[in-house]
């Protein structure tokens, strides 16, 4: 076998990639990547949106085949031909996008993959799950339908699934993006325990702190190429700040130390200004699988950023949708610049200057198959100057779209490219450009930086600050407490569909918000 194994690969590697290249129409997603993955190590993959991380994972899990290069498993070149093959090799993946069947129960999802003629072995599964959850310290509702679970819970199920299958290599693609700070902590601890048991883990994240805290080895991708690696030996000798600055250097060239630690610029909101957005006693009925809202009240003055903190699934989305008019409210009032808008439709609210930047970029934010240019104007269909007398003014649309592409630095092959082909960060830029365009008075941002890489996150945050600085009212919904602390004037905490308190973003805000989130008085 030694003749087959490569000089590059170390025999300690479970899996090694050698010169792996993958091309998609118009793009080289992975370009000659070498990577080694070892038991007992958390191998962190970092890189901007579109750097090619998920593509790499796709090849490891048998979804895609490399165009060039090879993959070695236990030192032997092994083309991973299908997901089934990957599973057989002990490679378990938690994908960036949810891979559970919503209409089946958790147990049924975990059972998927057994021999087709068999009865599902539920008892066996239950025993196995009990064993694993005990050792991992998590709990799952085996007989709940997946569609009834929160995204965080779904993510746990996916991790559990990889465990149930006795994976030797566990791949987590942006698994922390949906988790609360506490959830992230727990996942981190879990990963440490698993590698302690001898597993290998590939962990993809955009948060450098997580990389530094949970990793053993870090590889950085950029534009499909691997631009650097911090091996464990070096990793252990560096402190968190040193690791972060080294990563930043790899990703963006030389820069200041911790880009995320940017001081919150001191903005002064004029306390005497009349509130721009006033919400009083807003209520929404609960639905089968989503909480309702009860007596939500707050004001936002021009130039102010009000944050909404809280654990995912506590009604943030309902709040945003009720304000935007997408979800029927059962009571309460919403005033924009003093005028009541609660009876208006989505379109009318937008016309008055209320903007909603959704967190579901592909699901509802864009029409994936439509060109980038049209997606800029999705909420203005029929408005002049892009339509005159109902007729599309293609030149006008293209001109303005090209302008927005430049202004917001949208990386797209062309204006005609279907927007779904863009990476997450660039789709987000399209949405930002659309919502912040002329006429905005109050803007609701729902998790605006979720899934974005560092550069895009920072750029988006700056956009939001600039928005407020223009005298707009901003409602910023986020599960990332750091983000809220770095941007907001005040932070409200939502729990179970109501606002449990609002604190000014002063020195002690972190503890106060934290206390509110876990159900204590601020």
């Amino acid at each position, binding site marked *: 076998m030694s003749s087959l194994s490569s000089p590059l690969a170390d025999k300690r590697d479970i899996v090694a990639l050698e010169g792996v290249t993958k091309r998609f*129409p*118009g793009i080289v997603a992975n370009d000659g990547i070498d990577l080694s993955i070892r038991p007992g190590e958390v191998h962190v993959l970092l890189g901007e949106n579109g750097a090619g991380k998920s593509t790499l994972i796709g090849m490891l899990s048998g979804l895609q085949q490399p165009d060039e290069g090879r993959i070695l498993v236990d030192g032997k070149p092994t083309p991973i031909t299908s997901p089934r093959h990957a599973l057989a090799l002990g490679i378990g993946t938690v994908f960036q996008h949810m891979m559970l069947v919503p209409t089946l129960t958790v147990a049924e999802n975990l059972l998927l993959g057994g021999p087709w003629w068999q009865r599902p072995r539920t008892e066996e599964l239950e025993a196995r799950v009990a064993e694993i959850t005990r050792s991992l310290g998590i709990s799952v509702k085996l007989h709940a339908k997946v569609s009834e679970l929160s995204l965080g819970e779904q993510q746990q199920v996916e991790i559990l699934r990889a465990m149930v299958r006795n994976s030797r290599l566990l791949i987590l693609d942006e698994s922390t993006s949906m988790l609360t700070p506490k959830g992230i902590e727990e996942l981190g601890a879990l990963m440490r325990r698993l590698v302690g048991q001898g597993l290998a883990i590939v962990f993809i994240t955009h948060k450098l702190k997580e990389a530094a805290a949970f990793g053993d080895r870090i590889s950085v991708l950029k534009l499909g190429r691997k631009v650097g690696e911090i091996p464990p030996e070096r990793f252990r000798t560096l402190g968190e700040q040193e690791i972060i600055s080294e990563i930043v250097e790899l990703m963006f060239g030389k820069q200041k130390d911790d880009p995320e630690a940017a001081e919150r610029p001191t903005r002064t909101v004029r306390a005497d200004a009349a509130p721009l957005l006033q919400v009083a006693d807003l209520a929404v009925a609960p639905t089968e699988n989503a909480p309702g809202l009860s007596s939500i009240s707050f004001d936002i003055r021009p130039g102010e950023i009000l944050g909404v903190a809280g654990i995912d699934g506590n009604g943030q989305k309902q709040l945003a949708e009720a304000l935007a008019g*997408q979800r029927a409210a059962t009571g309460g009032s919403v005033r924009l610049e003093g005028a009541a808008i609660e009876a208006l439709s989505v379109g*009318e609210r937008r016309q008055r200057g209320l903007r909603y930047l959704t967190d579901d970029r592909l699901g509802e934010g864009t029409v994936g*198959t439509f*060109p980038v240019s049209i997606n800029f104007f*999705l909420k203005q269909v029929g408005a002049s100057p892009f*339509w005159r007398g109902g*007729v*599309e003014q293609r030149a006008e649309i293209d001109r303005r779209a090209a302008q927005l592409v430049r202004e917001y630095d949208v990386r797209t092959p062309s204006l005609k490219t279907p927007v779904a082909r863009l990476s997450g960060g660039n789709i987000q830029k399209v949405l930002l450009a659309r919502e912040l365009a002329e006429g905005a008075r109050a803007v609701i941002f729902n998790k605006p930086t979720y899934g974005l890489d560092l550069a895009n996150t920072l750029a988006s945050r700056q956009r939001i600050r600039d928005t407020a600085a223009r005298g707009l009212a901003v409602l910023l919904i986020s599960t990332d407490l750091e983000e809220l602390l770095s941007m907001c004037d005040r932070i409200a905490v939502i729990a179970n569909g109501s606002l449990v308190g609002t604190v000014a973003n002063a020195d002690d805000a972190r503890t106060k918000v934290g206390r509110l989130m876990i159900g204590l008085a601020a």
Partner: protein
Amino acid sequence: MSIDTAPGASANALDATSRVATRRDILHRLLMTLGPILAALIIAGCILLAVGVDPLAYYGYVLEKGLFSPLGIQQTLTRMAPLLFLAAGLIVAFRAGMWNLGGDGQFLLGAVMAAASAPVLVQVMPAWLALICAFLISMVVAMAWSLLPALLRAYQGVNEIITTLMMTFLGTSLANVLVKLVFRDPGTTVPQTRTLPVEDRLPRLFDTTITSGLVLGLAAIIIVHLVMTRTAFGLKLRIVGANPRAAVHAGLGVPGLTVAVFAISAGLAGLAGAVDIIGVQGNVRADWNPAYGLAVIPAVFLARMNGFAAIGFVFLLSVLSIGGESAARRLGVPNHFTLVLVSIVLIVLALAEYVDHRYNQSRKA
């Protein structure tokens, strides 16, 4: 179901595609249509050989009698009129993501209403006005027939494939009941409606037998194409079709648009019925159901909901059906062979589109 509404996203540069490229594109499209048809003819030719008929003679007749003889081409163009209206209606529905499979019921009701009203109206008002009224009545009745599936879909989320299929079964029966019991011509023994005199029907084009319904059909499908691709209303429908949640998010009145889509689609199907009656048939007989919808649906798909391409495919279907009938008679093949031929053509065209798509992708990679 998803429809790829971005027709061949091609250009790699920000600027518009050059004229040369579009000309090559058209040439390419033409090749990718004619090539598969040739292949289909070869396959169907083998079947002909198997039953002892000379395929060359058969195709010769198809071309001669469907396309190249003055008589043939006139018949072909006449046959196109109702098909074009149907295709136009399907384009609206399919682009908006609504699977209106109830075209045949809407068509028949439109036809019956035209046959019921036109002969009466021409006696009380100028012929041109009477025909316009008859068209309007057909359209409105067909629209009304689509209201139930539309409302169920818009406000209850009931899948429209089921409801439109059922409404088409119902509509076919209702059309028969209307012909036999309500609008029956008392002057004939055969159950059929009154007949619109030939001279009151839509005028023929110039000195031919081509109905001016063809012009109306062409106008309808071109207008639909332009509305769907160039106007705000069309874009709204396409948004609803491609991503209904995005439509809600963008503030579009999805239920209203849904009802509008059904109304337009059904209205056009009703007009198809009317143009067939007022232009060509003159009356409706009991149990008459040409079931045009079944052949037009695949044609619209193959045209990728593009109006101009749909005109081409409808033309092809007409040539095959007119020419095929003649060729079958002359060579003693049962007329059913035309169905086999159409089927093979459709399948091979679909395959060719796939191969083309694959080829384009691999070339871009």
